[in-house]
């Protein structure tokens, strides 16, 4: 049933596809973390943006990621914006998770004591300096675990990109399957790979958490 020589044969192909999956994850997450931060900052710095941003975040969170992927890939071209599959997929992942990340940042900012903001005003710091030197350095460390969880969640959703034929792991495994009529090895390998990567990143996140907790807090 399980054929090791077949495994050896498809491993290089899958390894190459795994790189695409990891790329999509990293780019998608950098996008999510950055855009999420921008959204969270905007609602504090420009209170008038708070309502539109909540609506947008709610909209993104209440529709399936797959629909958003399809939207960017299949619907955007009719508005004259044509994206290749990888770009559309990564963009959708990034935007989708930006909505979640922005809420995480928001809880981080909400946990900063009002007195910190007031001290910044009393010292006449600019809003930019206030965020950069005082608020963000205090708000981020406690939310690293939550952000890390979203990194892992985003990674586990990259197989959705196979729906628009991005040659990531899942899509590659499907192609191998349909060409050789053997699904056991490729699909199992993909599962094992996701399991291994999730365990590795969970360990990494915990290490980062410990590192951050070592610094003296309040």
């Amino acid at each position, binding site marked *: 049933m399980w054929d090791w020589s077949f495994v050896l044969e498809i491993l290089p192909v899958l390894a190459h596809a795994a790189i695409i999956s990891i790329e999509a994850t990293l780019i998608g997450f950098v996008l999510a973390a950055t855009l999420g931060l921008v959204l969270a900052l905007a609602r504090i710095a420009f209170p008038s943006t708070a309502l539109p941003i909540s609506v947008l975040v709610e909209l993104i969170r209440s529709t399936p990621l797959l629909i958003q992927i399809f939207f960017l890939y299949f619907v955007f071209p009719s508005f004259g914006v044509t994206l290749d599959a990888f770009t559309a997929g990564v963009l959708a992942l990034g935007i989708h998770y930006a909505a979640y990340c922005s809420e995480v940042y928001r809880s981080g900012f909400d946990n900063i004591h009002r007195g*910190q903001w007031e001290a910044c*005003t*009393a010292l*006449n710091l*600019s809003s930019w300096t206030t965020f950069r*030197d005082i608020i963000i350095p*205090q708000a981020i460390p406690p939310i690293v675990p939550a952000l890390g969880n979203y990194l892992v969640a985003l990674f586990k959703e990259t197989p959705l990109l196979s729906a628009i034929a991005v040659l990531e792991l899942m899509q590659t495994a499907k192609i191998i399957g349909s060409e050789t009529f053997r699904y056991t090895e490729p699909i199992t390998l993909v599962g094992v790979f996701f399991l291994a990567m999730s365990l590795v990143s969970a360990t990494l996140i915990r290490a980062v958490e410990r590192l951050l907790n070592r610094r*003296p*807090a309040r």
Partner: protein
Amino acid sequence: MTDKPIVRFDKVSKRYGPLTVLDSLELDIFRGEKVAIIGPSGSGKTTVLRMLMTLETIDDGVIWVDGEPLTHMERNGKLVRADQAHIRKIRARIGMVFQSFNLFPHMTAMANCIEAPMTVLGMKRQDAEARAADLLDMVGLAQKKEHYPSQLSGGQQQRVAIARALAMRPKIMLFDEVTSALDPELVGEVLQVIRKLGSEHDLTMLMVTHQMGFAKEFADRICFFYQGKICEQGHPKEFFGSPKNDRTKQFLHAVLEAG
């Protein structure tokens, strides 16, 4: 003391919904003057300081600092609401120390004291550190420069907060019950620093305090607030020696009773 006030509250009112916290307040404070603000809880003492620090907006009137409007600015000969740039310019003359210290917990005492001088005044690190070192020395914390707030006692934290505010060279310093959050044995060291400031610097000081003894000994003037108005004010000798208003008498009686 000159006859031109450094701070002037000109018919300033503050309301929270239906609650009028300050009612058409008029108060002039002169250069170098040490004013103690006392009064029952909820009488608006903190609000006065917070409005001057621009932590609260005002609903009516104008606050003047050093002859220039703080809450407003002149536009075509008229006073209009100040914009952020104007507020920042005038606010630079004022520093504040809070009841709860509000030090930046992720920064050492030294870093707390150089942050604003470097980012706001554009000072070089070296110069900012030299200034901060002098100030930390002045508040008796020369040995604690590299300590984080969590590694300092409440009294030490409050002294860092004083040094941090002074590093911006304000002309006016605001103190809001700066010893209220401290254990009794730590109150003295903070008051000692404030005393030193009173004699060493030509600073205008405005402090809200429940320490009647300190107010009496330190202040040039006592302002007694009651329900958002100054009910009585005067030199501490007369104020404590022969208060005129019945509310003042009641308040002093209650406070002195409590010890």
